[in-house]
């Protein structure tokens, strides 16, 4: 049988965590598991700590509390660059509940916001104070996250695209994000991330490398398109087969990079 423990501060909540406990953020992940009788945990740990819901500037970065909801991102002018990704998550009811921290933990094929944050080279700040890259965090996915730190991209250099079969809302066939930084008119230091193409959101280094030093046009990106799924083994799930994901990834990557309309 279950037990719910509520703590006034996130620090106390974090120290109450162990293998048999789950941290409840917005509820969209944990309550789903509770409803389906998941016996891997017997305790739900939560906090009423308001600091988790803050969005504030810190140096040249924005610090986004792990408890900030998708709807709050959409309402924040500072975070407007994340709105395409935040809007891609669920319908309005889910967006009122789903939190930034939860999105990092969401199982395949969920976690569209994390894809955007990964392409933006966000860092994760744990409750312990430890900081790490989001990429490192996604590789192990444990501990309680206090906040995300992300730099605002310049101009139109950030792109996000979610591919789903149902509009306007649908689960990801894949999601893609690109941070297209340039140097002397050529792409340089580009970051590309995919969602629903692996167990967690991933960076796609083959594509990043193939985009180094090229111009952002069809000829320039053709090499990148040909390695669109290199090193990836996309999973089969009820939304799409791995085969299908591999087949259509180059098309969507082209649309993402060139800013083409999907419809």
């Amino acid at each position, binding site marked *: *049988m279950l037990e719910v423990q509520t703590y006034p501060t996130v620090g106390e909540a974090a120290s109450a965590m162990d293998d048999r406990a789950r941290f409840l953020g917005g509820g969209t992940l944990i309550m789903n598991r*509770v409803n389906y009788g998941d016996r891997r945990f017997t305790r739900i740990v939560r906090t009423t700590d308001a600091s988790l819901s803050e969005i504030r500037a810190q140096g040249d970065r924005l610090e986004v509390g792990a408890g900030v909801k998708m709807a709050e991102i959409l309402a924040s002018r500072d975070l407007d660059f994340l709105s395409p990704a935040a809007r891609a998550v669920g*319908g309005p*009811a889910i967006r009122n509940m789903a939190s930034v921290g939860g999105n990092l933990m969401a199982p395949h094929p969920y976690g569209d916001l994390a894809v955007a944050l990964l392409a933006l080279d966000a860092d994760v700040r744990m409750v312990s104070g430890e900081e790490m890259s989001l990429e490192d965090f996604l590789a192990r996915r444990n501990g309680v996250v206090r906040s995300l730190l992300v730099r605002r991209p310049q101009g139109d250099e950030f792109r996000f695209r979610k591919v789903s079969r149902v509009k306007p809302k649908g689960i990801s066939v894949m999601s893609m994000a690109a941070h297209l930084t340039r140097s002397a008119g050529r792409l340089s230091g580009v970051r590309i991330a995919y969602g629903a193409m692996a167990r967690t959101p991933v960076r796609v280094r083959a594509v990043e490398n193939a985009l180094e030093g090229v111009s952002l046009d069809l000829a320039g990106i053709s090499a990148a398109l040909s390695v669109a799924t290199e090193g990836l083994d996309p999973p089969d799930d009820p939304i799409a087969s791995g085969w299908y994901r591999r087949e259509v990834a180059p098309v969507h990557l082209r649309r993402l990079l060139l800013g083409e309309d999907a419809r």
Partner: protein
Amino acid sequence: MKSPVTFWLNGSETAVFVDAGANLLDVLRRGCGDLSPKYGCGQGGCGACTVLIDGEPHVSCLVLAETVAGRSVETTGGLSNGPDPHPLQRAFMEGFAAQCGYCTPGMLMAAKALLDRNPSPSRPEVEEAISGNLCRCTGYEPIVDAILEAARQRGAA
């Protein structure tokens, strides 16, 4: 272990004892006897259990019941004003916007949240507002039409 929770349900102060880990949907249906929100998936995927918490739509199957303590919860059960249907209810009735009726309470709450914030929404705004609510019978067209019609009726009144 049960714990007491007090909140406002459709404007009335309500106190219930909830099991640890109970979701709001179960508590509304079993604890409070408000059967208007429906179970469809228990995963937040269908929207049949949509209720408004402090005016904002939530899927009640994924809300830990004790988190609504002190807050306001609105359901379709409290939508009509006495015997008079809410403009949304009237529009759904007249526009054939329900067939089996199982998604209807969730659709109505999602629509109410929209109209409360945006009294004259565009068609895409309506579609976005109900994008988390599945319907399997009628199709979405009459539902979207009914919501737009309700907005018109309200504007005219």
